[in-house]
């Protein structure tokens, strides 16, 4: 098996913004919507997911030569399930309240398509170093996504950020934002904003290139 494909640095950078798992690939939507009512549970979730993603990516990359094609998804899933069990037990032991608040969403990391897709796209084909860089980059991308959604929801819904008061007393709290419909609404609007921003940037780049050509002429 040859190790062609993007280098570690490319993988790392791509995972953060250009191929952001949530905003660009629409993967891992379940935790993005479910645990982002406040910033603290969102960050805990990111930590647990990052741990599982990094460990699973490295392990899958180490055993990539042993993988049988038609059984690989099962191997990925069982690897992920093992690390999720570890993360779940650790959370329950040291952050009991948080583990209770996150409820079923920690075990649901097993079926987070983001992790399986990284194992499939990167770790099962490339070396350990690249897989590690990829996992860290994608985890940072996941952090950006969850932190942004949770920040909007917590500030608008409760007027706090990480439990610290942000909005003055007089501003009304939009409780809707910490409820399920607010999750869909926030993510939809943020996705729209990012689409608009990247479309504008693409347009500017497209209009910038002919001008330089003209100037050169």
């Amino acid at each position: 098996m040859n190790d062609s494909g993007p280098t570690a640095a490319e993988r790392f950078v791509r995972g953060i913004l250009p191929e952001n798992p949530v905003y660009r690939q629409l993967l891992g939507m379940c935790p993005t919507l479910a645990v982002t009512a406040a910033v603290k549970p969102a960050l805990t979730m990111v930590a647990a997911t990052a741990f599982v993603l990094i460990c699973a990516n490295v392990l899958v990359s180490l055993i990539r030569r042993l993988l049988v094609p038609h059984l690989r998804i099962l191997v990925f899933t069982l690897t992920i399930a093992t690390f999720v069990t570890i993360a779940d037990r650790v959370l329950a032991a040291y952050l009991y309240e948080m583990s209770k608040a996150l409820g079923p969403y920690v075990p649901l990391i097993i079926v987070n398509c983001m992790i399986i897709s990284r194992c499939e796209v990167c770790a099962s084909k490339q070396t350990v170093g690249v897989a590690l860089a990829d996992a860290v980059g994608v985890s940072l991308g996941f952090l950006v996504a969850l932190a942004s959604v949770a920040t909007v929801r917590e500030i608008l819904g409760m007027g706090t950020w990480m439990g610290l008061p942000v909005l003055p007393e007089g501003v009304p709290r939009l409780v809707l934002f910490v409820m399920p419909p607010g999750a869909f609404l926030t993510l939809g609007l943020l996705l729209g904003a990012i689409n608009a921003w990247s479309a504008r940037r693409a347009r500017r780049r497209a209009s910038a290139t002919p001008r330089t050509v003209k100037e050169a002429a």
Partner: protein
Amino acid sequence: METLASLLLIALGAALINNFVLTYFVGICPFLGVSKRIDLALGMGLAVTFVISVAALLSWTLTEFVLRPGALVPTAVWNAVAPAAGDAAGDAAGAAGAATVDLSVLSYIVYIFVIASSVQFVEMYVRRFFPPLYKSFGIFLPLITTNCAILFACLEILKRVEAREWGLVESLTLAVFGGVGFTLAIVLMAGIREELELADVPKALAGAPITLITAALLALAFMGFVGMGANVEKALVEQPPISAERPTSPPDSGR
């Protein structure tokens, strides 16, 4: 009557009040991905309902008889056979008399294995005996393995079985009506999206963003069922005292 009422509450809770998709956000991927046409959405919903029931049946059986603390070897037997092991397992566990075989640590791995294999079996069965149905399900069947709704249902059942609250009937009710709720949500969404095709959506919001915003409105509508849930619970659970007082009430109703 009591059990029927609790079953009805579980069913209503899973299908409407705490809809899997719109309250718990499980099964979002197919909800966003396979909700462009009503017929495909219905197929996906039925496939998920079917798999969720099979997986719930299997995982309930495994939880009850293998994984649950004390299921494999009853506590009394364990203490009689290996009292030394109980002491060695730690003073706290030994003192509480909780020393027993507890395999619940393995439950996530077992569940995902059960789900993956039941999807495989359902696929083989449907292909062998209902070829037209298999053709219409197409790619959806294998995709169901990574549908979080199914693992979510298994985890809910695990929680209740470990607490000794639910038996097989309650667990299956949750699974079937959770699937029905998923079908309802995805079909409603598909109906809205078919109309949305004709709408003039701002360019930046086209595609996933407008779908999410539509889902927000749908979730808002489903929040209305919370009130209904409270009323139904009151009517069902508090039925016995009311019927007991009934003999004294005719004079009032006659007035």
